[in-house]
């Protein structure tokens, strides 16, 4: 009993000493650097999804910038969770300073959130960076963070694009040259046919996630559109010959037995075990594919339509600043610049699989030069950056439901129940009644 009392007393003394020391310390630091700025960085990166990279970056920044202290805060449930927390925080006047925002929330954020405009911060507080945005980002990439009414609400940070993965062993078996992957959709169709006929292996699969990301790339690369503006209203834009022609390419492959219509997991598993020749999906799967496959996974650029330019929607997020106080705004801007620096972006790309949004990171020895030289698949994805466009998001309260209608249509077209033209026409009517 006595021993326990002694122990408690000892612990109390210890705690007091630490407290006292702590107070002394904080007084010391505050007298030395009276203007240490605290800023908060909100992100969506769980431990399995780039979380360690975020921590590493914040630590590095805090070490290099003794006058600023960045605190990172993880927000569960992706951008929806983050946006909810953000609105709650702003209602109580405690906004974070730097925030990751999903591209699909771009217009919502622009219309509903009280953000600090980065171009304004630059002109007011950091005039030496006047040409920073133009110098370092491709115009089409910069547009990823520009709302429909033309406001630059943030800076693109993470970017993913679709690519065509293929199995070189299957190519060789079918008598095709793995160094000559298909470049056009016509060639993809031929390759898929050859693979099926020569080897009996299924030829091609395009991702069937619960979104239309890859299908948008297909449609828009043939000159079609997902959304169209008519009299100031946003309408479904995919009931055009270009869109249905592109979609029909997929449907025909499935109909002829050379293309696969299945769930993503089934198709990826089949690809990794060598039962599927080509898979069209995000560069975000690169690391996972390369590590899990028994063969050397190779990637080619997203196929194009003869004589037409590719248009590839970007997945990922942009960085926004929410600080109101000029000191914090300045600190937040410095932090954003740090996150967008080649070294930090390189760390980010390796940790997550996202592509760097900025020009020159791939050539920079501080950046991804070594990594990109070693990894051809990464190079392929990065060569597509000039063709990146915005991921279409259906506007309004029924937007996500409208997206689902387009997902449902994919099943109708690929199962061969209706031709692409008919199915897309019906879906467009349905979606227009929702918007």
């Amino acid at each position, binding site marked *: 009993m006595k021993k326990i009392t002694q122990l408690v007393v000892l612990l109390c003394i210890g705690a007091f000493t630490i407290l006292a020391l702590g107070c002394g310390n904080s007084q010391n630091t505050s007298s030395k650097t009276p203007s240490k700025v605290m800023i908060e960085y909100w992100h969506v990166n769980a431990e399995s999804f780039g979380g360690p990279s975020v921590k590493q970056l914040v630590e590095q920044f805090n070490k290099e910038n003794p006058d600023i202290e960045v605190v990172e805060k993880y927000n569960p449930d992706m951008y*929806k969770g983050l946006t909810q927390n953000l609105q709650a925080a702003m209602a109580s006047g405690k906004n974070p300073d730097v925030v990751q925002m999903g591209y699909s929330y771009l217009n919502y954020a622009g219309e509903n959130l009280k953000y600090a405009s980065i171009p304004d911060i630059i002109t007011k507080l950091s005039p030496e960076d006047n040409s920073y945005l133009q110098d370092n980002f491709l115009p089409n990439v910069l547009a990823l963070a520009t709302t429909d009414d033309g406001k630059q609400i943030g800076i693109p940070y993470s970017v993913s694009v679709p690519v065509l993965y293929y199995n070189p062993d299957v190519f060789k078996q079918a008598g095709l040259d793995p160094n000559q992957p298909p470049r056009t959709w016509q060639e993809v169709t031929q390759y898929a046919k050859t693979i099926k006929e020569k080897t009996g292996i299924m030829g091609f699969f395009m991702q069937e996630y619960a979104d239309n990301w890859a299908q948008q790339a297909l449609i828009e690369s043939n000159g079609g559109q997902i959304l169209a503006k008519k009299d100031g209203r946003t309408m479904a834009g995919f009931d055009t010959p270009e869109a249905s022609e592109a979609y029909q390419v997929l449907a025909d492959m499935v109909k002829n037995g050379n293309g696969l219509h299945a*769930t993503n997991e*089934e198709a990826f598993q*089949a690809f990794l075990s060598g039962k599927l020749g080509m898979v069209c999906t995000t560069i975000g799967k690169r690391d996972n594919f390369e590590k899990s496959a028994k063969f050397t996974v190779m990637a080619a650029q997203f196929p194009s339509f003869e004589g037409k330019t590719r248009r590839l929607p970007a997945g990922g997020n942009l960085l926004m600043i929410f600080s109101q106080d000029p000191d914090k705004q300045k600190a937040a801007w410095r932090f954003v610049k740090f996150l967008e620096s080649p070294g930090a972006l390189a760390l980010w790309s390796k940790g997550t699989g996202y592509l760097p949004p900025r020009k020159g990171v791939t050539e920079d020895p501080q950046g991804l030069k070594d990594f990109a030289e070693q990894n051809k698949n990464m190079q392929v994805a990065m060569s597509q950056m000039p063709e990146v466009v915005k991921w279409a998001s259906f506007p309004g*309260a029924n937007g996500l439901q409208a997206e689902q209608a387009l997902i449902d249509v994919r*099943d109708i077209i690929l199962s061969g129940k209706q031709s692409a033209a008919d199915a897309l026409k019906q879906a467009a009517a349905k979606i227009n009644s929702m918007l």
Partner: protein
Amino acid sequence: MSRFTWQSVLFLAPAVITLLLFAYWPLLQDVWLSFHSWNMVSPTMKFVGLQNYLQLLSSGELIKILLNTILYILVLVCVNFILPYLLSFIIAHRLNRFSFFYRSALFIPSTVSLAVASILFLWILNPLAGPLNIILSAIGLESPRWFKESGLVIIIIGLIIGWKVFGYNLILLVAAMVDVPKELIEAARLENVSNWQLFRRIIVPMTSSTALYVFVITVVFGLQYVLVPVNMLTQGGPDQGSTNLVYIVYQYGFVFFQTGKASAFAIVTMLLYALFLIVKTKVLDKKVHYEN
């Protein structure tokens, strides 16, 4: 007398308060939400009256969802009620040896989580790389696209849920079967009654109370279990071919962020459940033999 009431209130309080707080209060909130339009993010909610309900009733979606739900119920009743009922009779009365082994072997799968069962079936049924496809192609058949054909997908998801529920229901039914007095059966045997007559005239009436319970949980819980495999494997696809009353609530709420419509669907679902339970009490309960 007053002391007695006071005490009983006190004893009931923990249960009643918990129930009110976690069942009835959310229910009221759900009713309130169903009259509003809200996206879970926006700070303002808009009152829309009955609009959510009207949209729900006027869309063609509802009919498809109801038909799918009925199909699910049929599959679930076959896999998780009729089949274990017959098997439990065999295990309890027709097997002379190894009954313990069969009971355990058939129960073990229900300890596996539904998510695991879903992935397991995804692997088994993979139309290109799965073992079932290897067997099918060996006999010259082509594997169907299990999760991409409407109708078929509901049967498969019903089977996945069966993996989880079958064993539990079987154990309940075996217990009821074993409870049937041996004398009755032996007396029947002496009279040279056929197996079918034995089953029909003695077993079915004597086990009817447990059977009814199993039937109700097969429908009520089974439909709720649908959420996990559907969310993991099909997200309601192909073309809403595997959605049902329970998944659609989740989809409207947490995929489309339309809490109003999700709540309206939830209320409709609850009313249909209530209808089912009323039918059960009014009709089925009367045909059931309770021992006490």
